[in-house]
């Protein structure tokens, strides 16, 4: 398999001014992550709010500037500052689907104009060709082409998200970064959009970077999944492997925290106490040690590296407990 996108030691730090300090502090939104997306796959990025998953997605489409690290698309570094022509070239290959189906469409443009806009920006086709392309895109996402003259407010949330998908598809990209594309939608509609995304993946030859807080959705759609916590990837594995054998204590807790739609399967214990620490002053050592019930002395000083679990190069975990070279202490399963 060929790597389509490689992220290497990506860091995004935002300056914030604290009242008590003269020098600006930094929010370490993304703090050194590595992953690779292969052609045709769906790569999931999960975690709770503030873990840096959205920032990672935005850095890939250059909506935020990386502070350090590299991002290679098809072998070319796209993390450095770019000229407009390069930026446009990137836009034809990598697109973005936003979370909010309401604020992501310009309320004053018709749906036809919204979907046509990327074609105009890139000077693709004349007016008649563009009209045809728009009609095809709208049909492909399950809307009728004669609604091109309607305004976004005439559509429901799910239909608006379809319009957002059509706009992202207009330039025929290879990779689409999807930032929580279904979290603002009702369940029944969510299922429609997820199915649509799967269908389009085949017909348009797409790879997805799918960002979500919802593990069930990620499990349904993704081939490989990275779990993020406090700006770091704590576990990265294939879907089967991750859900059968979640090895990082955080991934385990995250899975246990999901309320199952089954009254027979009641949760009895709080899977995790406390809150995520501030990304302005992340704790030393393992970022998760403040909430981890297995934490021991080394976790508080020494930051664990993302290493293969039991020699399996496709299942990476950043936890001292999972790596036998840490010696003395082994993870005690309940």
């Amino acid at each position, binding site marked *: 398999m060929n790597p389509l996108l490689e992220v290497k030691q990506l860091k995004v730090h935002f300056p914030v001014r604290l009242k008590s300090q003269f020098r600006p502090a930094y929010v370490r939104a993304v703090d050194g992550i590595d992953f690779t997306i292969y052609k045709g796959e769906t790569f999931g990025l999960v975690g709770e709010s503030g873990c840096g998953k959205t920032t990672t997605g935005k850095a890939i*489409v*250059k*909506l935020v500037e990386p502070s350090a690290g590299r991002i290679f698309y098809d072998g070319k570094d796209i993390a450095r500052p770019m000229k*407009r022509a390069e*930026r*446009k070239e*990137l*836009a*034809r290959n990598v*697109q*973005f689907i*936003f*979370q*909010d189906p309401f*604020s*992501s*469409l*310009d*309320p*004053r443009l018709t749906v036809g104009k919204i979907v046509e*806009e*990327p074609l105009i*920006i*890139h000077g693709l086709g004349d007016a008649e060709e563009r009209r045809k392309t728009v009609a095809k895109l709208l049909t492909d996402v399950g809307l009728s082409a004669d609604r091109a003259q309607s*305004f976004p*407010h005439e559509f429901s949330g799910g239909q608006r998200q379809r319009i*957002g998908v059509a*706009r992202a598809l207009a*330039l025929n990209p290879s990779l689409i970064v999807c930032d929580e594309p279904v979290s603002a939608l009702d369940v029944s509609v969510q299922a429609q959009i997820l199915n649509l995304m799967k269908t389009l993946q085949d017909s348009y030859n797409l790879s997805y970077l799918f960002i979500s807080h919802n593990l069930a959705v990620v499990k349904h759609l993704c081939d490989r999944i990275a779990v993020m916590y406090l700006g770091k990837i704590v576990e990265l594995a294939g879907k089967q492997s991750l859900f059968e054998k979640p090895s990082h204590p955080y991934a385990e807790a995250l899975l246990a925290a999901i309320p199952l739609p089954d009254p027979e399967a009641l949760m009895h214990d709080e899977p995790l106490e406390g809150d995520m620490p501030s990304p302005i002053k992340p704790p030393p050592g393992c970022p998760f040690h403040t909430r981890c019930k297995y934490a021991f002395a080394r976790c508080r000083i020494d930051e664990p590296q993302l290493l293969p679990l039991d020699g399996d190069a496709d299942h990476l975990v950043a936890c001292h407990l999972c790596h036998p070279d840490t010696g003395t202490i082994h993870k005690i399963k309940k």
Partner: protein
Amino acid sequence: MTFQAVWKRFKRRKTSLIALFILLFIFAVALVGPFFTKYEPTEMALKNKYAPVSLDNPLGTDQLGRDTLTRLIYGSRVSLSIAFAGVLSGCFVGVLLGVLAGYFGSWVDSLISRLIDVLLAFPGLLLAIAIVAILGNGVLNTMIAVAIFCVPSMARIVRGIVISLKNQEFVQACQVMGASTGRILFRHVLTNAMSMIIVTVTLDLGSSILTASALSFLGLGVMPPNPEWGAMLNAGKEVMRSYPLGVLAPGLAITIVVISFSLVGDGLRDALDPRLKNLKIGESQ
């Protein structure tokens, strides 16, 4: 949002609708009125001074025997053109500064915002007086004073709108598409800010008629014998006892126009405000 939809909502507020018709009537008078008057605005007839209300002089004549209705009609041209030219040019600059400050942020924003702060620190009329005092009086300089008077408030309003629009996802979506800054600003940011700009311009029109008249009344703006409403007030106040219409007529004209602009502005705000328009019913999310 289509014109029809806005008009439909605007019509609901009767006071604004009446105000709009009054304004349209006054515009029409200013435009074609001078073709129908019997006199010239500066034509003196000393034998006929203080003439009472009659068919020849519907509003009487002043201390120099000039026909007050004629002067009022010509005066509306002067007052309205000062207001329109001043406000439109001032708001153009204000929008430009606001967009630059809001969209680019950082040092551009700091620079422009401080400038706005300085301008806003002066009371409005005092600022206008200061400008006219520096530039000298006359119609053109009054326009400039009115223009500068409009800049800071417009710039501040537009800056706020642009900052909130800039973070909307549809603007980010354009960036992801590789759109140029100009396209984003003109096609998405400005069009979405337009309704607020239109409302502000309408409200500014009212207040700048007041400012221009005040300047002229103080003898700083348009100079006599030019028939500007404020200048007419000034001239009329000397002989208020013997010829009260000389004050009442321009005074009422100013009042009616200012109130009408403000009512139309309020009506437009309600008609254009998307928040009131899309009143969400059902879930309180």
